[in-house]
């Protein structure tokens, strides 16, 4: 079984993607080539930007099944309407109208069970793309990209996580920001979660929400403080009080921010940064009990 590590952050823009991409890079350099980076931030997938040389190997549609009502068979009994918890079905017997609103449908299949007249069938409906890339035939990147206008990010993440993982020994999940359902889905099967935060009031507030969530999920986790030196000490006081381990600190550096901006994160990495990630990798590998 591969070790699964999720990289998450309550607040967006704390450097979660930077950490995910660097970990991928340095795990290849220091540990193993058999590593898979899964970009679960399907609303805004950005990991690929940092790997201009990655070769595409596969692309497919991720689908949602949306039911359709055949009004020739429908008896307008409204059983399906009663079964649908998401108010996605409108049936008006008087005018023989029956329709499903794909925007509200969660693809739960309840209406199919409800209907006794075989009036409902399902059709696949694209919610986004899943693309697979490789760096050297061993290390892989898997990217989910939500179709614009689709509200099915959680389903897309689930589909993404069901893709074959080749011979990966370590899998990294780059999680979406926030604390809602998509984050739960991303971290669900992770052995360890890395929370990336920044020492500002916003960073701290959002970190607290994420910590509450991970504790509820019973996950083991540690924190990387990014942009260290930028804000104040409140974050450190909180981590200390809550007994949360800091597994790394990345100093704020405007020059480095500029390198990130260009998408050239993995070129000319300063020695300190390299050492820092090497330590982080050793730490998390020890934590997940993976000595490969």
């Amino acid at each position: 079984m591969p070790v699964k590590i999720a990289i998450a952050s309550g607040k967006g823009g704390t450097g979660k993607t930077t950490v995910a991409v660097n970990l991928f890079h340095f795990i290849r350099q220091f540990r193993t080539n058999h590593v898979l980076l899964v970009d679960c931030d399907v609303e805004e997938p950005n990991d690929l930007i940092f790997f201009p040389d990655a070769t595409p190997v596969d692309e497919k549609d991720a689908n949602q099944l949306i039911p359709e009502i055949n009004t020739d068979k429908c008896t307008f009994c409204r059983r399906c309407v009663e079964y649908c918890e998401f108010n996605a079905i409108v049936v008006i017997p008087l005018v023989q109208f029956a329709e499903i609103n794909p925007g509200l449908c969660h693809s739960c299949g309840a209406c199919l069970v409800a209907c006794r007249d075989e009036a409902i069938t399902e059709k696949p409906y694209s919610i986004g793309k899943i693309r697979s890339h490789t760096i050297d035939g061993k290390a892989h990147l898997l990217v989910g990209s939500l179709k614009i206008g689709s509200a099915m990010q959680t389903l897309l993440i689930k589909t993404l996580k069901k893709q074959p993982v080749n011979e990966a020994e370590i899998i990294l999940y780059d999680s979406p920001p926030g604390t809602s359902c998509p984050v739960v889905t991303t971290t669900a099967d992770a052995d360890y979660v890395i929370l990336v935060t920044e020492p500002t009031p916003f960073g701290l507030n959002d970190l607290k929400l994420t910590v509450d969530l991970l504790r509820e999920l019973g996950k083991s986790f540690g924190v990387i403080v990014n942009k260290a030196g930028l804000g104040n000490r409140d974050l450190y006081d909180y981590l200390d009080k809550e007994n949360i381990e800091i597994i790394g600190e990345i100093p704020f550096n405007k020059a480095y921010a500029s390198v990130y901006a260009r998408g050239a994160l993995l070129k000319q990495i300063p020695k300190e940064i390299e050492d820092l990630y090497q330590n982080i990798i050793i730490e998390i590998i020890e934590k997940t009990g993976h000595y490969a």
Partner: protein
Amino acid sequence: MHEITLLSGKGGTGKTTIAAALASVARDAVFCDADVDAADLHLILKPDILEEHRLESNWVAIIDDELCTHCSLCVEYCRFDAIHYKPSGGLEINPFDCEGCRLCERICPEQAIRSERNNNNFWYVSNSRFGTLVHAKMGAGEQNSGKLVTEVRKKTREIAQNTGAKFIITDGPPGIGCPVISALTGTHKVLMVIEPTKSGLHDAGRLIELAGNFNIDIFAVINKYDINDQVTGEIEKYLHENSIPLLVKIPFDTVMVEAMLQAKTIVEYQPYSNISKMIHQIWESIAETEYTEVEKVK
């Protein structure tokens, strides 16, 4: 009355900092924090809560061990893989995976399944030094952030109508998924806060495409523009090609963080600074242009 919604696609571009700064220069406005997943506006606005409301969450199914005969029918029917055998025997439903469709409850031959709501979503109406703020706190791991966004916006509108306020300033959620769709529906203007990174540009592009489907007027500001002049140039070009007015380019300045640490907006912290002037400029440009809803309906 019109609603101005701040969005960014990518998180951490300074959207909330700018929303708070606009709150300190806006007149006749009501404020709404629609970033319910990671609500931060209250950290600067320091609101006094006047009303607390609960929003019903989705159903979560629960199996009664006493009644269940382990027929596995529910496992087969559940489309969300939420029902599993426990290592100790018997079945359990993972509340985080359960979508609340209640299909298992309906098909269980033993009536061993019931559904409950955990109701951990709250929203508030508060007073702040700049005016009324409607905000929310979402329960950890909840599914319906879109519903909560719709709820806080509805209430903000009501308040704006009742008090005769001219503007609503809404701090929107990141991304382009369900909560953003809920935030875009029916708003009048979008102010995009973009940072000059490849990711920022990429995410802004996806958001602009989404907003395009809603026929909403979009305005943009580039925040921390001097972090990378080359990418800033690319963003300017992109905005120009898409006929999106660029209102100002705000430089990177640690003073923004200093103000945040004092729980102040930049306009309060350094009223005569260049950045504060830019905030006034943003407000004047958006507040004074009429939105073109009528024309677009034609």
